[in-house]
């Protein structure tokens, strides 16, 4: 197996899925974002978005924070340091595959 193909097989599968990759990329540029923002920007359905967010949370890549904005309950999602480093590593790996 060539070096770049080995790199390909070593890609983080949790992040590699396009919908989750979009979510992680969106969250990497902000401190936190709510469900509605992620829904609008990712173009996913509510059900799909919930599933992908749960998957990312299980992997420890994002953290959910339940707060209140006024009297309305509000859920915000934030990238954890583990998620941030996984995302950086993924981008590096991807870059090295395509630059070879």
């Amino acid at each position, binding site marked *: 197996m060539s070096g770049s193909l080995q790199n390909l097989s070593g890609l983080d599968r949790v992040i590699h899925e396009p919908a989750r990759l979009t979510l992680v990329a969106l969250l990497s540029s902000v401190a936190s974002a*709510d469900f*509605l923002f992620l829904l*609008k920007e990712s173009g996913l359905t509510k059900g799909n978005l919930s599933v992908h967010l749960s998957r990312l949370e299980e992997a420890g890549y994002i953290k959910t924070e339940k707060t209140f904005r006024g009297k309305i309950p509000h859920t*915000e999602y934030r990238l954890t340091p583990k998620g941030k480093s996984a995302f950086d590593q993924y981008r590096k790996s991807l870059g090295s595959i395509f630059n070879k």
Partner: protein
Amino acid sequence: MNLQIDNAMKRARGYWFVDGFIEIAMGILFIILAGFLLVSMNTSQMPLLPWFLSVTGEVVILKVASFLVVILILWWLKDNFTYPRTGFVRGKITLSQVFVIFKNLILFLLLPILGLLIASLLVTSTDSVLSSMPVWFPVGLGLTWAILIVLAGEWMGVHRFRLVGSAILLAGIGVGVWQLSMGLPNVPTNTPLTVLQSSTLESISRTLTSLDFILLICGVILIASGLVTFIRYRKENPTPYTEEA
């Protein structure tokens, strides 16, 4: 794939500009400043130099006060209009971003000085720099603002800032050409800078007029851009998001 990731990251960074409110607010701030400067220039009986020093202090106070008011209004507008429609985002301030802001601030201060140095290389004497100030100042300022706005737009994926930057650059050139068409004040050569001649004062006064026009035009450009963005945003998101939608 990397391009897709970059686009997603830029969309998140530029979210604050999605509704046009910031541009409208900045435009209003610019017009208030231009109006204040214009009124102050036309009503003050003080000599130019003391007036300039006093107006600089007043402008700083006005800037800080209106900035605070604008932040509060923006906060309310975002809370009641934008967030219920397209969601809430908390901005991220990292150490590297603080570094970038500082770097840009230093650039913002250094670029006019660099412009002045280049101008002094191109013209023969300090007197020429002074007499041509009403021309090069608006052009330099327009260029600096245009570069900063376009760079910020590229970083956030807000492509309309290319148009806004170009319009501001054109405004700077336009004001410079207008000042040039009126003829330059003839600053006498070999005059010590400490002795302010009437022609030097005229040059400074006309430069301030140029600044006033630049502020006014930039304000109008920003408001126009903000309004177009707001109308488009309102059309795309007419009602707040509900579970049933």
